[in-house]
């Protein structure tokens, strides 16, 4: 299975050197989707305006030994997209077929809020990517970036599509733990946070952060 949540540390008894504050948020669903839309669009804009116009070798600069280059960061994110984009699309379509209606507010599940918080770029928690989401040592930069851009476009469409369904009721199985199903609203939350985190890492690798 491709992709996995970073915080497997959760199950490995992860030590809270900087404790993650659990927040149980309730928020207007449309505003929340607006926020995820804008964050995803900002990533896409950066990739379209800047990254795709750089010499591909720039995406292969390794900042320090053992660190990922930008292409590897994107390959890592792409592996999540390969799992989550079809999973989200399927769940939304099934919900629409069931006649799911949008709920005005979204309330994060405790696990969803926890995952999202943990993923956020300003989270101080160090994480280790699960083995199956670690990108190969050599990544072809042009194809990887093209796929990355494609996935952001697809994500934007899915966020728009999600406006017609209930973000509290539609659930998405987590890639490595299919019995664990996150609310759609939380899936968007952690997915977007995870992307922002690694996009920052990619920018640092390119010396553009």
């Amino acid at each position, binding site marked *: 299975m491709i992709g996995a949540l970073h915080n497997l540390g959760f199950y490995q008894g992860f030590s809270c050197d900087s404790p993650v504050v659990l927040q149980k948020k309730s928020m207007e669903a449309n505003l929340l989707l607006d926020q995820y839309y804008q964050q995803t*669009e900002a990533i896409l804009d950066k990739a379209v305006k800047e990254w795709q116009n750089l010499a591909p070798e720039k995406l292969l600069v390794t900042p320090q030994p053992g660190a990922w280059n930008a292409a590897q960061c994107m390959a890592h994110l792409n592996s999540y997209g390969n799992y989550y984009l079809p999973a989200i699309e399927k769940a939304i379509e099934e919900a629409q077929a069931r006649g799911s209606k949008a709920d005005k507010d979204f309330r994060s599940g405790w696990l969803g809020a926890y995952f999202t918080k943990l993923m956020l770029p300003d989270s101080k928690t160090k994480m280790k990517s699960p083995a199956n989401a670690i990108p190969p040592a050599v990544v072809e930069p042009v*194809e990887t970036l*093209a796929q990355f851009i494609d996935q952001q476009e697809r994500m934007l469409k899915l966020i728009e599509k999600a406006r017609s369904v209930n973000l509290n009721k539609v659930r998405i199985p987590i890639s490595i733990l299919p019995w664990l199903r996150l609310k759609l609203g939380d899936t968007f939350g952690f997915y977007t946070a995870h992307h922002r985190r690694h996009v920052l890492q990619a920018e640092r690798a390119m010396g553009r952060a």
Partner: protein
Amino acid sequence: MLYTNPQDYLSQIWPDLPTEVLADLGAVFHKHTAKRKTLLTTEGEVEKYLYLVLEGVQRAYAIGADGKEATLVFTYAPSFSGVADSFLLQRPSRYWFETLTPSVFFRTSFADFDSVLQKHPLLERKLRIALSETLEGVLVRQIELQSFTAEQRFRVLMARSPHLLQLVPHKYIANYLGMDATNFSKLLGQIRI
């Protein structure tokens, strides 16, 4: 450039139109905004609108029997947009029309547009000239497709619309030129400094 009303926009395209005609034509256009990757016209549907592009990049594309997309044209300001042949003939569109970036338009319906044309025969003449230029553009593109190498097509596009590189994902430009992403990247490397 962002125009606040359709009349100003149209006067930029057709500066010699009498004010009265511009006012009548401008009055049937209404503002419309669309997020990126919004499908505005689908194959088989009669185009409902004639668009004037204020902001953003759009494309028309066909989907072949093999499911592959063929990008036919990009549009951006200042220009008319939409599936013009379907709109003017009121026949089902043979292709798709979508926004590639967040877009703002003025647009009008066929019934409204047609009534202004009937009121002002001068507009028919303007339209004929505009369509002749479009036809010229389509035939020039036909020459490029049939007689140019991929690299020549790339250079022509870079001379005509280099700004597209920073606006839309390169896959659409590569598709318009009939090449894959890797070849496109190689050609881009040759002109990059």
